[in-house]
């Protein structure tokens, strides 16, 4: 009798199943609006020109080897990554109270942060500290905190389906009612999956309550630069909270804004009260990293580090990021115009008001099923579409498909 006879078949991760189904579809006009990766107007992956350049430099540099990185990662990468999030002139960095933990993508940064919090936050090994994630949120947030040992993961109000925007009242109410010391996972910009971000005034309200109620700020920043095309603008919320003296974590991903998806480049930025606290925190982060992956992968961090630390390459990178953000903004404009031109019932302002890679279309599960089965347009059951999957070549087909879904399927 096998030891593993009772291991149940686990359900597939939805977003990857969608892509698998898409791949098997032979329909000539099929479109994949599922997984969150950038595509060019020819619907192809895009390796950023600056990345190609830097990778060539790395391969040709015979002085580089493949030795282990330190446990916390490549030092030049960590400092540059934290600087990108907090700003060149960040007072927290000047105070020497900011540290970074290089991690395997944004996921890895979230997980290391979650593991640390479970061990050391709100008492020692307090697994009952409530973790609040937005409703809806990136589905892996739940898994990350649950597997880190937290027993109480709760939603906070976020998406208002009726008005297709932020449920600010519900959000603020949840903040007021959350037990003190609860952890809140906040999306720094380009909320996944809704594309709906708080305004600056709304962020200020959120911060005021979080400070008063002693709630912990854990930012997930996967789209800096990718949302508006401007790095500083996309980091406004993070920097505001830092200026309000919060100790906080920021899980940064360079998957999208550098197009380095498969090299797993991320950074957990830690902002502490002072250097003494930071030192102790990082020493414990090392212990967590050591039993998870020992030390992080070298390649992606080298690419990002070289780019961020060289003024010309940095400027070139910002241009590449703006190219991606601009194409997405253009597609948003186009989709809204076409739906309006078709006279598709409902308002479509949210398409252009939302920001970043994703849009919550407002399509219901039945309409989504119609889109997939009848029109071969693949999107998540939540109605989320990846704007990067839209091109000037397929946008008419997609707009028409949405129009039919809305008019034919209730």
């Amino acid at each position, binding site marked *: 009798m*096998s*030891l*593993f006879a009772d*291991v149940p*078949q*686990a359900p*597939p*991760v939805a977003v990857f199943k969608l892509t698998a189904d898409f791949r098997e579809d032979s329909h000539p006009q099929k479109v994949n609006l599922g*997984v969150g*990766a950038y595509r060019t107007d020819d619907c192809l*992956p895009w*390796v950023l020109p600056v990345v*190609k350049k830097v990778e*060539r430099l790395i*391969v040709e540099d015979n002085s580089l080897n*493949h*030795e*282990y*990185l330190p446990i916390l990662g490549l030092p030049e990468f960590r400092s540059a990554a934290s600087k990108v999030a907090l700003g060149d002139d960040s007072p927290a960095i000047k105070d020497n109270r900011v540290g970074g933990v290089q*991690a*395997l*993508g944004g*996921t*890895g940064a979230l*997980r290391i942060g979650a593991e640390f919090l479970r061990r*050391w*936050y*709100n*008492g*020692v090994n307090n697994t009952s500290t409530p973790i609040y994630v937005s409703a809806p949120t990136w589905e*892996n947030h739940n*898994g990350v905190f649950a*597997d880190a040992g937290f027993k109480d993961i709760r939603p906070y109000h976020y998406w208002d389906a009726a008005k297709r925007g932020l449920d600010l009242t519900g959000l603020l109410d949840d903040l007021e009612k959350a037990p003190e010391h609860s952890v809140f996972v906040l999306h720094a910009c380009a909320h996944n999956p809704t594309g709906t971000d708080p305004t600056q005034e709304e962020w200020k309200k959120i911060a005021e309550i979080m*400070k008063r109620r002693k709630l*912990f700020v854990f930012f997930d920043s996967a789209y800096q630069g990718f949302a508006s095309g401007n790095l500083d603008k996309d980091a406004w919320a993070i920097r505001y909270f830092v200026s309000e*003296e919060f*100790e906080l974590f920021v899980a940064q991903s360079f998957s999208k804004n550098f197009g*380095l*998806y*498969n*090299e*797993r480049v991320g950074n957990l930025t830690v902002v*502490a*009260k*002072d250097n003494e*606290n930071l030192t*102790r925190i990082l*020493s*414990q982060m*090392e212990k967590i990293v*050591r*039993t*998870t*992956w*020992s030390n*992080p*992968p*070298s*390649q*992606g961090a080298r690419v990002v580090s070289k780019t961020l630390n060289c003024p010309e390459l940095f400027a070139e990178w910002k241009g590449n990021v703006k190219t991606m953000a601009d194409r997405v903004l253009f597609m948003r404009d186009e989709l809204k115009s076409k739906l309006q031109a078709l006279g598709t019932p409902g308002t479509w302002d949210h398409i252009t008001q939302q920001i970043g890679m994703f849009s919550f279309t407002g399509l219901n599960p039945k309409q989504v099923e119609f889109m997939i089965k009848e029109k071969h347009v693949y999107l998540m059951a939540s109605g989320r579409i990846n704007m990067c999957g839209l091109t000037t070549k397929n946008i008419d087909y997609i707009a028409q498909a949405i129009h039919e879904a809305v008019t034919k399927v209730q």
Partner: protein
Amino acid sequence: LEPFVLRSWWGGVQMGPPDPILGVTEAFKRDTNPKKMNLGVGAYRDDKGKPFVLSCVRKAEALIAAKQLDKEYLPIGGLGDFTKACAQLALGANNEVLSSGRNITVQTISGTGSLRIGANFLSRFHGGSRDVYLPKPSWGNHTPIFRDAGMQLKAYRYYDPSTCGFDFRGALEDISKIPEQSVILLHACAHNPTGVDPKQEQWKEISDIVKKRNLLVFFDMAYQGFASGDIDRDAWAVRYFIEQGHNILLSQSFAKNMGLYGERVGGFTVVCKDIEESKRVESQLKILIRPIYSNPPMNGARIATTILNTPELRLLWLEEVHGMANRIIKMREQLVAGLKKSGSSHNWQHVIDQIGMFCFTGLKPEQVERLTKEFSVYMTKDGRISMAGISSGNVGYLAEGIHAVTK
């Protein structure tokens, strides 16, 4: 109550203890003695003491660069061509397990990542005991990895300090008492930290008793090819156990044998009863992996795959691995010769009998301390030295130093 700006969440966070091995390297860096030696390092060094990037790696990198591939996410379980090649390397291309498809092999973050995924899998799905039995001693990171995954650690006798060799009787005695369905971790070759490996006849007896006790075998193979210089020879124990019917767990690392340390290339394999079971296990491994790092890094896996699947590169790799292993073996011989020449009357045969990167010299802590203070030779307190830190240029100096503290 302090004002908000002065409060901190982290007052209760203790300072983590310094890593003992890192401590050795830090002290080494500070030493100004031109003859200093760092024998703590767990990475291969050439005869000039420099890191060694294999030619097959450089060639593979050039091939890959020319292809201009994209950077799309890998599947959660990693690069398919890599996991196939990785399993083949360990089990042998003609292994029945591979042809029946009853293994699941996932790409992992080198050996540590592999062990951790395995530990997490055991913690969640192993209905038997929570206990994992490690050899005494074992790699220092084994214990915290399994502990953080929620398992409990126990030990079986392994190293015999009186012979600096394998405590075969002690191991068999202890293993024969392990409760059924416990997990036993075995180092496939080049035991870390002692360099002491069982002989084939001894492995056979270990397999028998493990079978009798109905234990779940977890092999850690971090040095395939690096131990004897022969990849098949180094995988003998793994393949023998599978032949004998053990459905093993296996961790592989390409850090040392391909010199891909910082690229984090590894594999985790579960040998299942049949292909149906392997699908269920695979689905659960993905569920474990996704909330840790989503999917693994591409670069190192691509390099490893290119090497394993390109005939000229594979041949070149086998030569280079052989070369690394040979240099280590030569250093062992030269160290013993140097000790004899220095006039040492002790029996240093174990230095030659042990295998792989590490050597348990048998030095006591006081002797280690003297070696460090008087000769600037840096090593861990347990008397372990990394053979990689020795070169033909400094082996004589080391012999003199060891002799001086042991005569």
